[in-house]
């Protein structure tokens, strides 16, 4: 766990160590009182730290290796999950998970990036969540399946970016994302997007066109990673902290700008410290969003989705 401690969480770790030291001694009433008070101080400190996260700190939380993955949410909120694989053209991209399941009894389709969580082997298997063209095509093929049978789609977004490599370009990563943007706009079934981790530019957007966009409290969503932005505009990736500020990539900023519709609260200390609590906090907003979209007929839904994206950016035009 220590390796996964974020820099700004150090003060918490210190108190935790202190508490562990007391706990390792023979128990006395005084020591128990001291442990209880240390625990309370840890809670308080954590709450205070997380209430005042800077944008760059949120980037680190969003990228935390123990951040829940799409499959962590599937385990806790869905039943009868059946994973399906492949784009029927080239390969099965493990950075993109697709499958169907029941959500509160209703059949739904799930698509989502998967970074691999905390395990190195899994990370490599999932290509760290960098999907290739076949990943985006796999997602679209699964969404078309949902469309054909009238099932709602839930898209879980968590990727650093689409994979920037030779094979991505050769197989048309740009085309794959572009087609998803166009065709997701025309899906007649409800589509709910959950930006729960890292919303890395076009790679995120490639599965993120929907009726309602939920975003986790400590998730980020950006046109470019702060490091890349800093390298270009400040000519030094060291200026990532300033870049993270400038890019307005946090949930509260994006809510204000009309890019997302709703902020999903996380457990105090971030979704990574308690997956079950994080899932429970998502359930309410997700269920409400899904039933709101399902209440519309297909034509209305399409029109509303169009208008939703149609207005994006109007706030920035003089």
């Amino acid at each position, binding site marked *: 766990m220590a390796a996964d401690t974020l820099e700004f969480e150090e003060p918490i770790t210190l108190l935790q160590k202190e508490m562990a030291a007391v706990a390792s001694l023979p128990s006395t009433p005084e020591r128990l009182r001291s442990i209880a008070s240390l625990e309370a101080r840890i809670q308080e400190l954590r709450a205070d730290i997380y209430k005042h996260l800077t944008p760059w700190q949120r980037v680190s939380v969003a990228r935390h290796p123990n951040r829940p993955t799409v499959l962590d949410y599937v385990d806790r909120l869905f039943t009868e999950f059946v994973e399906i694989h492949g784009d029927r053209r080239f390969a099965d991209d493990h950075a993109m998970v697709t499958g169907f399941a029941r959500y509160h009894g209703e059949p739904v389709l799930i698509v989502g990036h998967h970074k691999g969580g905390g395990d190195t082997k899994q990370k490599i298997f999932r290509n760290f969540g960098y999907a290739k063209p076949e990943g985006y095509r796999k997602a679209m093929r699964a969404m078309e399946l949902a469309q054909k049978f009238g099932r709602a789609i839930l898209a879980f977004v968590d990727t650093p970016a*689409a994979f*920037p490599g030779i094979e991505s370009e050769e197989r048309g990563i740009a085309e794959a994302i572009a087609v998803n943007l166009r065709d997701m706009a025309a899906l007649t079934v409800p589509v709910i997007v959950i930006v729960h981790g890292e919303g890395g530019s*076009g790679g995120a957007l490639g599965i993120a066109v929907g009726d309602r966009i939920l975003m986790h409290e400590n998730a980020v969503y950006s046109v470019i990673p702060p490091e890349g932005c800093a390298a270009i505009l400040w000519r030094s990736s060291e200026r990532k902290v300033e870049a993270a500020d400038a890019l307005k990539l946090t949930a509260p900023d994006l809510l204000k*700008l009309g890019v997302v519709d709703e902020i999903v609260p996380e457990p105090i200390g971030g979704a990574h410290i308690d997956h079950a609590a994080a899932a429970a906090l998502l359930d309410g907003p997700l269920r409400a969003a899904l039933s709101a979209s399902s209440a519309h007929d297909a034509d209305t839904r399409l029109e509303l989705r169009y208008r939703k994206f149609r207005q994006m*950016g109007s706030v920035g035009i003089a």
Partner: protein
Amino acid sequence: MAWFKKTRKPIKGDAARSVPEGLWVKCPGCKQVIYNKDLAANLQVCPKCAHHFRLSAAERLRSLFDEGAWVEHDADLRSNDPLTFADTKAYKDRLAATQKATGLKDAIIVGSGQLDGLPIVIAAMEYAFIGGSMGVVMGEKLTRAAERALAERCPLIIVSCSGGARMMEGALSLMQMAKVSAALSRLDKACLPFISLLTDPTTGGVTASFAMLGDLNIAEPKALIGFAGPRVIEQTIRQKLPDGFQRSEFLLERGMIDLVVDRRQLKSTLAQSLRFMGAAPAPAPPEASAAAEQPAP
């Protein structure tokens, strides 16, 4: 998205490489000296080696619209700097300076007119305006262009020349990819032609949205076309990229582009394509058509 922009001198519009001032220019293709007026007479294509010099948005529209004439739309839309973004320089100031230098409010001109007698809406990007980057204004103008084509039931051509999404407008820029693509989806459903012309360079979020969604995706020769920038890919794979990687001919070979067309044949190829897709000349003025309906005496 705009990862690919060079780290060194990213923001200046690279004006030196587009049409140079003065009497003559050295062609980067064949290293020969060419007179500017010869270049201008040849659509800025080197008469010796066919190197395609970059066109400004206005030059592009002049080269495509009949008589070089069009009616411009939404010329006054401009960014209000929605993030109040500042890096080493305030975006507001960068915008003002670029507006002054280019005479444009943002990196795109949209016009309607005729191409070989066919009524059409054409949008062309201006690379000299912050690298042709796409922010909220470009997204809005392209969306309106698609909606205009839909309302007038005429074809749409988008000429891309862009480094991708505009970082200084953050996620709002990113969302323009979805917004324009949604508008194109409507054009698609209505069976109205949309041709994407990809010119040097077309990268990032522009490629990963409307530029790849044409009924035809046409590229100019040797244009840099890709999603991730060459530098980012080199950092990922830790080796040099092969020659010609991400150039038009490479994409053609990989099946990502429908055809590569020399600028001097472009207008006629576009006209043929549009006719194939059902574009028709504007109906004759009412008096003339009424007269035509009169039975012959």
